[in-house]
């Protein structure tokens, strides 16, 4: 019962704090692509893989008081900060999720800027293509972000690092 909610709460437990909805979306997507058991369905949107299901589930967790959302104004736009609450910790105690390997992955992703996570998740979205085709695809779908060759190389390297830790 509510296992998908519990797995998300576990992610917040490991991360301690996630700043930015986009960052959260990309972290869960990347974890899912690394075969962690997140069930949220993703589709491609203007800014890369996005899950409405995840957005709604996070809203549910906020309404239930399991995570706290803080809205902050940052240079012309709003940013959202998420932290686990005591009630969220109690909720998590009802589950034996065995997600320990997720901890390092979440900690590592949480240290990356959301721009980089956006690039990494986009690469993973097109992972059925060859690397050359992926780079071409990024130039089309992420034209406005103007990712440099160095950034793209770093993203590919990071994906390999994450995979090797599995």
């Amino acid at each position, binding site marked *: 019962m509510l296992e998908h909610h519990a797995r998300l709460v576990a992610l917040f437990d490991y991360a301690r704090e996630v700043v930015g909805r986009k960052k959260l979306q990309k972290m869960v997507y990347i974890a899912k692509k690394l075969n962690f058991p997140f069930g949220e*369905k993703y589709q*491609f949107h*203007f800014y890369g893989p996005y899950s*409405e299901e995840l957005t709604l*589930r996070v809203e549910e967790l906020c309404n239930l008081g399991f995570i706290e959302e803080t809205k902050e104004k940052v240079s012309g736009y709003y940013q959202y900060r998420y932290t686990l609450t005591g009630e969220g910790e109690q*909720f998590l105690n009802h589950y034996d999720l065995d997600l320990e390997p997720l901890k390092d992955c979440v900690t590592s992703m949480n240290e990356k800027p959301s721009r980089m996570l956006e690039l990494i998740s986009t690469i993973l979205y097109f992972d059925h293509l060859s690397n050359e085709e992926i780079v071409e695809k990024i130039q089309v779908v992420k034209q406005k972000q103007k990712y440099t060759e160095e950034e793209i190389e770093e993203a590919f390297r990071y994906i390999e690092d994450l995979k090797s830790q599995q």
Partner: protein
Amino acid sequence: MLQQLNEEKVFKDPVHRYIHVRDSIIWDLIGTKEFQRLRRIRQLGTTFLTFHGAEHSRFSHSLGVYEIVRRIIKIFQGRPHWNNEERILCLAAALLHDIGHGPYSHSFEKVFNLDHEDFTQSIILGDTEVNSILKKADSDFPRKVSEVIAKTYENKLIVSMISSQIDADRMDYLLRDAYFTGVSYGQFDIERILRVMRPKEDQVVIKHSGMHAVEDYIMSRYQMYWQVYFHPVTRSAEVILSKILHRAKALHEEGYTFKLEPIHFVSLFNDDVDLDDYIKLDEGIIQFYFQAWQEEEDDILSDLCERFLNRRLFKYMEFNPNVHMEHWHRLYTYFVRAKIDPDYYLIVDSSSDLPYDFYRPGEEEERLPIHLLMKSGEYRELSRESTVVEAISGKKRTDHKLYYPSDLVERIEDQDLKRKISEILEL
């Protein structure tokens, strides 16, 4: 220049009055077996068990989306940012956007780990009648159509006509679903919205003078979600449907011998569904098995099928996981003692189990918001201008319910156990 029919063909439609077809390729696509299959898949899945009129198909919705896009294009022709060479691409993508849907898609996708969008891509790009017709336009045309539907096509304006927060898909399903369910709150003035749509470099924008028509559309989405799509009786049917599929799969994995071999399900059970198997699935096939499974030796499978077919649905109560977690653990134990398998008969369903796109005003670049084109030529996000939209795009309402079979509880012989369960369920 693509071939045109000698005479325009029309489909009579209860929502748009007429659907007009002049392009041969569109006419040919409608005639393919993959598109005709959509006649046998209901647009709203199990909703017909709550609103008996909701028997309309994905076929009629797909034609409706095509027709709306056709009308938008007429408004866009000759305006800046609109490239009329993309006209047929837009129309084909609109027509085919749901081609990969299967019967009761939502439950099937969750239980069997499928994604109808993958099948949409396969039908457009694979060895199918749809693909052979698309290729006649150009060898690269199927790829373009598939990319528009996947939202990865380079021209974002075209993508946004079919998939954005105000698109032809949503406008058609809201009006069509309201019409067929018979509810009055799904209405909005589509003619007005179409008239005030304008093409921009990478999305459709709305002239400021059309803001109130868009407010109605946003309200319609909100109302339809809570009153129709997330109706608790429909959700009860969906819960049972999902449990039927889980049970059949579990039995297959245990090596159970079905009286009627479920040949159409075998590749689903084995996580190995190919396109041919998938295209054969429709609601007729599924209902046939549900009929047959009522006679199975397995009590759970036969009971769930009987419930689904005869609308003996589960009852429900509000469930707050923060407050009622202990209740749930106790109920689970009591159900086991009463020999009612809680994994099939005690289910919590959440609003996020049926994702629905509330309007979101572009929070931190998550989704592209609706932009109004102001008289000054500037663009303004909708909720910054509309207090109505601002009000309903703030704090989101969420919901959790606990579903259970009250008739089985009623039949528990151990009176003490029955009393304990009834107390928690407030029976």
